[in-house]
């Protein structure tokens, strides 16, 4: 009953509203950075916040299929917007690192090559590029059955993103491990075989 009501309610939410609402935290964070609201080291803070929003949106996008299967709540029509905004965040994260943080082409290349956590993060970013380029109706029609295969790259990108977070933290910290657990659980939960096994129990 509740799910039905929610489905009816969500159907009234226009998709474009997400394109406006989801970038707001990033814009607010950038504004805080400009006006001294991000503390003593705004560049690192902005970089980390944008990376964090990216992971949260990737997780939100990954949750939609499992949520539909296990609860009946249908949020499928919002998934493209979530993915596209997630890519916007990771691009802003990447540009913050490139322009504000390193500001030196040589150091950027050395970092991508030599720092494994940067390599992993960069790879994750690259994997998302073809996905955002094909996130239009024309590409969906054009690519046909290849489209879902191509877009399963998001699983790899999300895992690499979670790994990037684990690799950049110092010492033994819980939060990045929780992110990774959630990412892997949502990916595992959408595998049809696993799903059937789960239903049988």
């Amino acid at each position, binding site marked *: 009953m509740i799910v039905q009501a929610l489905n009816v309610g969500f159907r009234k939410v226009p998709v474009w509203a997400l394109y406006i609402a989801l970038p707001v935290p990033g814009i607010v964070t950038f504004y805080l*950075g*400009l006006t*001294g609201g*991000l*503390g*003593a*080291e*705004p*560049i*690192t*803070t*902005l970089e980390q916040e944008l990376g964090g929003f990216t992971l949260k949106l990737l997780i939100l996008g990954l949750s939609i299929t499992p949520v539909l299967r296990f609860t009946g709540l249908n949020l499928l029509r919002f998934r493209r917007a979530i993915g596209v905004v997630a890519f916007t965040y990771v691009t802003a994260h990447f540009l913050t690192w490139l322009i*504000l*943080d*390193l*500001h*030196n082409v040589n*150091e950027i290349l*050395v*970092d991508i090559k*030599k*720092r*494994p*956590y940067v390599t992993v993060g960069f790879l994750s970013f690259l994997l998302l590029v073809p996905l955002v380029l094909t996130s239009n109706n024309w590409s969906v029609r054009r690519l046909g059955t290849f489209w879902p295969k191509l877009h399963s790259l998001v699983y790899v990108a999300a895992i690499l993103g979670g790994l990037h977070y684990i*690799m*950049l*933290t*110092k*010492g*033994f*910290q*819980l939060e990045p491990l929780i992110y990774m657990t959630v990412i892997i659980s949502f990916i595992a939960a959408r595998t049809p075989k696993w799903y059937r096994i789960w239903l049988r129990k």
Partner: protein
Amino acid sequence: MANRWKNNLLNSEITPEVVWLNRRQIISSALSLGFCGTIAGPVSAEVLTPNSWEDITSYNNYYEFGTGKGDPAANAHNLKTEGWSIVVDGMVDNPGRYSLVELLTGLTLEERIYRFRCVEAWSMVVPWNGYELKDILDIVGVKPGAKFVSFETALRPDEMPGVKYNVLDWPYREGLRLDEAMHPLTLMATEIYGKPIPNQNGAPIRLVVPWKYGFKSIKSIVRITLTDTEPQTSWNMSNSREYGFYSNVNPTVNHPRWSQASERRIGGGLFAKRKPTLMFNGYEDEVAHLYDGMDLAKFY
């Protein structure tokens, strides 16, 4: 006994907390600039302007209070520093538990403006006040044969919310070779800007070793042990590939996660540029001889 190292402070009459100049360090950085061949003119020297009190006390790594940079400032007020004492043991003539009054009375309070370089590639300039570690070690009497000094931070689960998690193997431990410990630059700091060190910066007494990465400068010290074997140090125990015992600031030795070639001075806002990191954090003239003949890429 103190005053073996002079940094010729010049207190500005106008805004003492903002414009503290340091002639010795101007000279030394002018020399190193000349060495790099990038000197623009005879007067282009770096003026060491200390970071603001706000920067220094709000952006901290003190994992006992949480792993976020703001966590120490938010949580460290619970640390009780009244009646602080330090256990001194190992190869010393007078082992025992010393109150800070017993340990520090009569020693010369030094004013030192030091560069502070974190292994995460950010840096600050901090106006410390404190005592040369050598003066303290002379009081307790170092036995011949002692080669290292190890330090321990307080471990108080009731006052330190961060130690609930095994981010590191608590208590926090650090160590120096005896000659490093006896070096006049090595300070046991009790004040910043002439005010008692805030808890998040390591109250009531902490080590400051300006030519090493910040994590060597252990906070809130409760134990000092003299030994003849290299002591275990927390970050080395956690990840020995990334954190060596020496951990001298060295732009030429690669760290797997952060390029150590450059750093960003805290407090420059959203468009602050990085600047090249100096060998031994700019204290090469003072400390390079300690490592004569050592391969610094091997003993990182």
